[in-house]
């Protein structure tokens, strides 16, 4: 390897690692702060590695606050939103691709149009709607709200995914004696799996991190998800419980990190949708 090539490699690596450091630093700081003793929190100069590792903030969070209730709510919320969105979006995408009925293309465009609408403008109408149908202050109201704004994107993502599945596969299943639903389950779904998984991840992240709707639609501790719950207990006008906040942030990140680790290969496959040949 020539010197020029070598130095170019070193430079490239240096650049890559600085970008990684830039992105990773806040996360590392979050982790470090969550295991620092309270006394070390505001030391100047700050310590990068804590002199003593403690999990007291985690225990306090679990013992003294309704953190676990929020966690449970967030899990229920993320899973049920994802389930509802995936069921409707796969069947919807299949219908938009394979069935012929008047106005099919129009319908697809209309769905895209709803995605263009900023979700903020829907908050007040949705709030009144939820009160009117008696679902205000419930997790279901959030599931409905999250479904309304993640469904259009999910539908289009899955549509482009499923468009890459050859028509002949479904025809072959029909000729082989499957009903339409059987052909969908036996043949289309396994082919669409990478797309379904990446769509599911996208929806789950959205439901997990959503803040604004949760703030407006839900006001009781029993139904609050993590985002607004943590905010309401740890951040007040007078005080911010930094160490608890960081411990909460770490615990909030863990489920997503776990999901990513397991589903990463599907996600990257998802980004190459259409290029993947069955």
């Amino acid at each position, binding site marked *: 390897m020539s010197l020029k090539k070598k130095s170019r490699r070193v430079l490239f690596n240096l650049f890559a690692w600085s970008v990684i450091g830039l992105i990773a630093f806040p996360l590392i700081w979050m982790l470090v702060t969550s295991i620092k003793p309270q006394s070390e929190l505001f030391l100047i100069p700050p310590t990068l590695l804590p002199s003593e590792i403690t999990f007291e903030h985690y225990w306090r969070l679990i013992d003294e606050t309704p953190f676990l209730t929020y966690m449970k709510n967030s899990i229920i919320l993320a899973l049920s939103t994802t389930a509802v969105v995936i069921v409707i979006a796969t069947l919807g995408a299949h219908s938009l691709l394979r069935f012929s009925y008047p106005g099919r293309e129009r319908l697809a465009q209309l769905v895209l149009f709803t995605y263009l609408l900023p979700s903020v403008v829907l908050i007040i109408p949705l709030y009144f709607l939820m009160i009117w149908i008696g679902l205000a202050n419930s997790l279901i109201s959030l599931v409905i709200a999250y479904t309304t704004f993640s469904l259009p994107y999910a539908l289009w993502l899955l549509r482009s995914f499923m468009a890459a599945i050859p028509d002949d596969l479904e025809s072959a299943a029909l000729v082989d*004696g499957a*009903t339409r639903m059987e052909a969908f389950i036996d043949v289309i779904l396994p082919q669409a799996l990478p797309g379904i998984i990446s769509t599911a991840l996208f929806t789950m992240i959205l439901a997990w991190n959503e803040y604004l709707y949760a703030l407006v639609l839900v006001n009781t501790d029993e139904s609050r998800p993590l985002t607004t719950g943590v905010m309401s207990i740890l951040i007040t006008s007078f005080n911010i419980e930094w160490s608890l906040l960081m411990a909460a942030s770490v615990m909030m990140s863990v489920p997503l990190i776990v999901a990513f680790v397991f589903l990463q290969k599907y996600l990257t496959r998802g980004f190459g949708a259409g290029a993947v040949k069955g």
Partner: protein
Amino acid sequence: MSEVHINHVYKRFGDVTAVDDLSLLFKAGEFVSVLGPSGCGKTTLLRMLAGLETPSAGEISIGDKVVNDLPPGSRDIAMVFQTYALYPHMTVRGNIEYPLKKRRTPKAERAVKVKDAAELLQLEELLDRKPRQLSGGQQQRVALGRALVRDPAVFLLDEPLSNLDAKLRAHMRAELIQLHERIGKTMVYVTHDQLEAMTMSHRIAVLRFGVLQQFASPDEVYRKPANEFVAGFIGTPSMNFIAGEIDNSDGKLTFCGGGVALSVQAGLLPDGLIADGDKFLVKMGFRPEDIFIGDQGDDALVSVVEPTGHEVIVLIDLNGNEVVARVNPDVRLKAGDKVKLRFRPDKLHFFGTKEGIRLNV
């Protein structure tokens, strides 16, 4: 084994008529090819037989049952697709077994049938592989296996050889013929490749723009094409045409056109087609093998010589008309040679100019 009856079937997609008043009867056990250029409606016809498309009008029967309203799975047909349409996430065994599973065949029976089909198609070694680990020819055989295993009354094959390379295609052609002889089922074979249609079928249905042009044996389609389109479509190189007129003087018919004048053999055209002293505009057709290059006949100029080994294809300029001849490789010719052409008088075809219908007896 069942006959297939297509009775005045139409298929329209919006303003486009893909299949136009088609009536055909395929006999039980027959190997029929549906042949035509792309967009002639042949695949639409096959999909209607399979139940994947609904006819806009008309009736389709398989055996003695009208199947218009039956879903594909209840029609007792199997189909092999051009793309093979193997299920990528299933093994070869899973693919072949799938139609049996959908028919609730007991597991033990399924295993036996899959084994039989695999044996017949030499797939035993490949049963646990996924389709993407197979070569084109092997995938083709799996697709056939999936069709065979159900023992259907009718096989529908949609250009099944078109994705294979030339050598493998010739091999699979022979295999398909043998397979048909062995199982004796009615097979409907859609293709745009006339060689496949000619070599494999009992009868060929030639389609154009969704309209049936001719339905006859390969021999008849070749020797007595029903119209100018069939004449030009069947045969490689295709038939030569020269526009001209036939006049009748004292009962003697003479063709004049393209600088050629030749007397038409008695009995070639029906009596009374052209009244005495009358003229009739025609197109004269002749196959490349039905002209001779020698020292007698009309003057012509060799423009291109294409030796293929066992024969030589010669492009000849005959008074401004381009004519293709198929000659023996021993005849040494080169571009620019002046030659003389003769036609085989009993092999001339005449077509009307308006709709191109065959005029010969």
